[in-house]
């Protein structure tokens, strides 16, 4: 059966989209059929990691939400990004971006959209593209759309930084996910200053939330240097950060 994985963070700037892209790619490399939906319709961004520019996105999730197309018509086959990497047979990777057109973004902000339609869209995508995994890159914070994503997910990955504001917001998200009975909740701590204390940071945070910490990622110069110009695990397959990402991907259901 297919799995839906939501990647969420309470605040922006945690590296949520980067983590989503990496987990999706690492899962696809195992020979899985994987889709990524950018539901961050107010500030889309994951398409950049796959080399899309503003003009390059013709159909987007927005078109489906306004009833202008079927959801699978907004899916871009980005499997070729896996070329040159050891990939198990059957791998496929699709991206459903959000529209980058400011008019579209403004419409979402002004009118909102039918969240129930989003749910139908997820199910339709899984069916039409025969997906093993659907990764949802959610909007930061809590709104109807993120709650829906959390409610329908088999696993929720919450990304946070080791700072007070993220701690508080993460606590709220964890409580909401428990109320919605999300089967798996895991934390990924990102942008940790000193890599040598990763274990201590992870242990402390895991104990505080009573939620497993699937990985602790350092604030890496190499990530900063890549500057969202690619998917990190594909650019740096031998990197220590990629090893941590693989560890997180391995803990997904």
């Amino acid at each position, binding site marked *: 059966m*297919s799995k839906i994985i939501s990647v969420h963070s309470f605040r922006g700037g945690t590296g949520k989209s980067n983590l989503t892209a990496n987990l999706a790619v690492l899962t696809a490399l195992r020979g899985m059929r994987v889709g990524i939906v950018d539901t961050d319709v107010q500030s889309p961004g994951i398409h950049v990691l796959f080399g899309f520019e503003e003009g390059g996105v013709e159909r987007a999730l927005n078109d489906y939400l306004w009833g202008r197309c079927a959801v699978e018509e907004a899916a871009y086959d980005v499997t070729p990004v896996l070329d040159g990497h050891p990939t198990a047979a059957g791998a496929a990777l699709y991206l459903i971006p959000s529209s980058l057109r400011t008019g579209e973004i403004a419409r979402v902000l002004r009118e909102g959209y039918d969240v129930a339609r989003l749910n139908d869209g997820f199910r339709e995508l899984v069916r039409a593209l025969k997906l093993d995994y659907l990764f949802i890159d959610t909007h930061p914070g809590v709104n*109807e759309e993120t709650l829906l994503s959390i409610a329908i997910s088999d696993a929720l990955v919450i990304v946070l930084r080791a700072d007070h504001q993220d701690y*508080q917001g993460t606590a709220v998200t964890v409580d909401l996910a428990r109320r*919605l009975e999300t089967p798996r909740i895991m934390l990924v701590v990102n942008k940790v*200053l000193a890599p*040598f204390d990763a274990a*201590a940071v992870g242990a*402390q*945070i895991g104990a505080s939330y009573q939620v497993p910490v699937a990985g602790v990622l350092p604030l890496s110069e190499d990530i900063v240097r890549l500057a969202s110009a690619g998917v990190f695990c594909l650019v740096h397959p031998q990197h220590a950060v990629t090893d941590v990402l693989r560890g997180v991907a391995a803990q997904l259901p």
Partner: protein
Amino acid sequence: MKRPGGDDMLPADDGARDETRAALRAQAAHIDRLERRFAAVVNAVIPIGVALLGARDYHALLERILLEAKTLCGADGGTLYLRSEADQLEFVIVRNDSLGIALGGSGAPIDFPPLPLRDAASGAPNTANVATWAAVNGASVAVDDAYHAVGFEFSGTLAFDRRTGYRSTSFLAVPLQSADGRVIGVLQLINAIDPDSGAVVPFDPEIVPVVESLSTLAAAALEVYLREDHLRREIRALHVKIDEVKRARQVAEITDTDYFRELEQKARTLRERR
């Protein structure tokens, strides 16, 4: 008669010839000393520096700095002082081979009072001890015999000797300076031992620059350690503090909505419907 070799170059006059020979010998000895110093830096100081930079245990690092310096100049004893926030030199590691003393680090705790770097009343720099002199001036200082030293105060040393029966003679104090020139501590070595006779001798002036090189690397290693330690403590201080009252209120604000209640009821069905 024509003689082979370099003497062709020597003046004909015997007196002048001897003088030139002496000058050449002195120059050869100088080159020999430079070579030995170079070898000491390359073969001893640099590998020690690299090892120090990787240190993960602070006390072991401090101990190693002193022991390596002691070995390098064949000293019987030595002290590593670190400058405290109160502007004093605190005894951190003390070692003396012939007395079998090992204090600080892996040894027993040290209860020697710290050496103030300033006079408490006047605020004037304290240069009475060799260690404080080195710290205040940011320069090395050697004393051949503490009992006949002029300009330094050795009452602490003399009291130590009376108590232990030791004879503190030659001293070398080298400041530990950070890259920006700040003195963070002092290495003080006592009683250089002549490796052949075993007698206590003055510190060889040739070894001073080598110990200074070591102290520069030691200071860098200490700074790296302290910076990392500071970061570690900062991270440990980043306790996961959650305002539970606020958390409950924020959660309630969301869960009390009709949308959430409806979603809560539907969540399981939504997951199962796929």
